[in-house]
């Protein structure tokens, strides 16, 4: 019975075996999670943001638990695109992981130069996701707030990159569909959302912010309702696939996102608590679809009865 269920989807000609992906910055480059499951079982792994040069990231403290959510200000710590290609890609290739590389830069040029370097490896990269929205560093965020800049960034990277481009948007805006529409018009092959909400916490003993960077990004269950509202809004504004991110902890959350228009989802913070969560979600999603006699994601995506 389960065999009949088709979880696959296609984005700009690339096939994904299922809609359960791992969110950037919450799965490293796959090495550690490979201890817990076979990376080729999930729809895609979106790598931690890669930049042109390596970055050390922010000093500690970088994280703080806020109730049932968390703040982070990692500061895009990463090995840089050259080292990534040299030492991280081969592992991912060997694991047969469906790979999406998330990138950021301080300027359109930096984004483009990372794209160019990744072109050499494009046969094993399913898509590039543009982090237009990291709240913890100055780069990126502007692109997600200003439709004109977003458009320019996407046009330029599209002209350089040989694989599909996914625009990852920030929730810290007045009207996310405005940016989504601009991104689509500029040629984005898909829109993913949301990145973290800007947040802050203070230690009332020491009067010091809980993060060295003062503010950070809020993730986890608290942001789920915000993410769902934004996915719903964007789904009703664009026609490219929408990828839902934010606070997903189980398969029910995934269905909620899909009903509101997400063709696929990314699991973020939940990986920290249960490194096998994505695999468990794939199984539960299948069982749920089976119990409802659904055969493919088309039976669910966008089917909210609003």
């Amino acid at each position, binding site marked *: 019975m389960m065999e009949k269920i088709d979880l696959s989807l296609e984005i700009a000609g690339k096939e994904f075996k299922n809609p359960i992906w791992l969110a950037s*910055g*919450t*799965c*490293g480059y796959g*090495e*550690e*999670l490979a*201890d*817990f499951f076979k990376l080729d079982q999930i729809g895609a792994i979106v790598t*931690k943001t890669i930049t042109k040069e*390596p970055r*050390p*990231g922010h*000093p*500690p*403290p*970088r*994280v*703080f*638990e806020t*109730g*049932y*959510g*968390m703040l*982070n200000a*990692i500061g895009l*710590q990463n090995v840089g695109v050259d080292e990534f290609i040299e030492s991280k890609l081969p592992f991912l290739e060997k694991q047969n992981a469906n790979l999406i590389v998330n990138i950021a830069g301080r300027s359109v040029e930096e984004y483009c130069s990372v794209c160019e370097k990744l072109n050499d490896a494009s046969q094993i990269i399913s898509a590039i996701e543009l982090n237009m929205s990291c709240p913890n560093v100055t780069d990126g965020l502007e692109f997600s707030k200003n439709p004109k800049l977003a458009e320019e960034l996407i046009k330029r990277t599209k002209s350089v990159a040989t694989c599909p481009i996914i625009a990852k948007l920030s929730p810290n805006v007045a009207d996310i569909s405005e940016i989504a529409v601009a991104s689509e018009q500029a040629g984005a092959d898909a829109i993913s959302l949301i990145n973290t909400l800007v947040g802050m916490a203070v230690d009332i003993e020491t009067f010091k912010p809980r993060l060295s960077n003062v503010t950070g990004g809020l993730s*986890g*269950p608290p942001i789920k309702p915000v993410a769902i509202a934004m996915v719903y809004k964007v789904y009703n504004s664009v026609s490219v696939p929408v990828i839902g991110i934010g606070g997903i902890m189980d398969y029910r959350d995934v269905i909620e996102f899909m009903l509101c228009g997400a063709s696929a989802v990314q699991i973020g*913070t939940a*990986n*920290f*608590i*249960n*490194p*096998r969560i994505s695999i468990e979600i794939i199984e539960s999603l299948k069982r749920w679809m089976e119990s409802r006699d659904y055969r493919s994601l088309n039976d669910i995506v966008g089917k909210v009865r609003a």
Partner: protein
Amino acid sequence: MERRRCPGKKAPDSPYMPDIYRLRIISNSEAAGDAYLLTLHAPQIARSCQPGNFVQLKIDFPGGGLWRRPFSILDSDGDNIRILYKALGRGTSYLTCFTPDMELNAIGALGNSFSEPGRLDSIVLAGGGIGVPPLYFLAKDLLDKGYLPENIHFFNGAADAGALVFLDEIADLGVSTYAVTEDGSMGIKGFVTEGVMQFLMGVKKTPVKKDTSLYACGPNPMLHVVSKLAEEYDINCQLALESLMPCGFGICMGCAVKVRDKNTTEGYSFRRVCHEGPIFNARDIIWE
């Protein structure tokens, strides 16, 4: 800094990988010094874990709490591991309510382990507050490996006599055991670093030169002082660090600590306490 995989962390000769387990509670009861002793049935972890390793426990306390909580492994026998913990906050307080036969979801064993001291070194172990567990495991492990108890000096520090954790059990190992209390209510008066310093001064004065290896675990200010002592006396020193740990197995970069790194333009880089650590060479750490 070399990036070698430390013992206990998937050494090439061991097929062990961290995994997610539901561990049955064997016992969970008060120990001396405000601490609790938790015994978990965990055969896979027990058979492969090393001193310094830790587990990430999921404690679903009322009102929430997203992350797991990290706890050092105190020791292991064939099938069980033990954990010694203080009820400091919401999660650890709730943990005290768990009773035998209930289960705890755990990931482990995680982290690296200590490098071994020279065979004839004076081995100084300095645990402040709830810093005892990894050092206790280390002491037991060294004794198992044939190190002589008289070469092992365990300094156990706390605010006062009542807060001293696991002192009798340490003494029972047969190693030289030193209590250090801030209020002087037992043993040496001062911070645990005071005791270590007195010891190192003593060693310096002895005619027969012996290498010293120093191992420490405790709050950051303590470890900072220990590092300075190690530098001053030019001895090997390894620290078991603590950090906030959203994941515990290397995927979030949240637990970073700043270490010297000549291979980067900045001269430093951030390492994961959970993955490259929690054991670090004192001289690699950049204190701020």
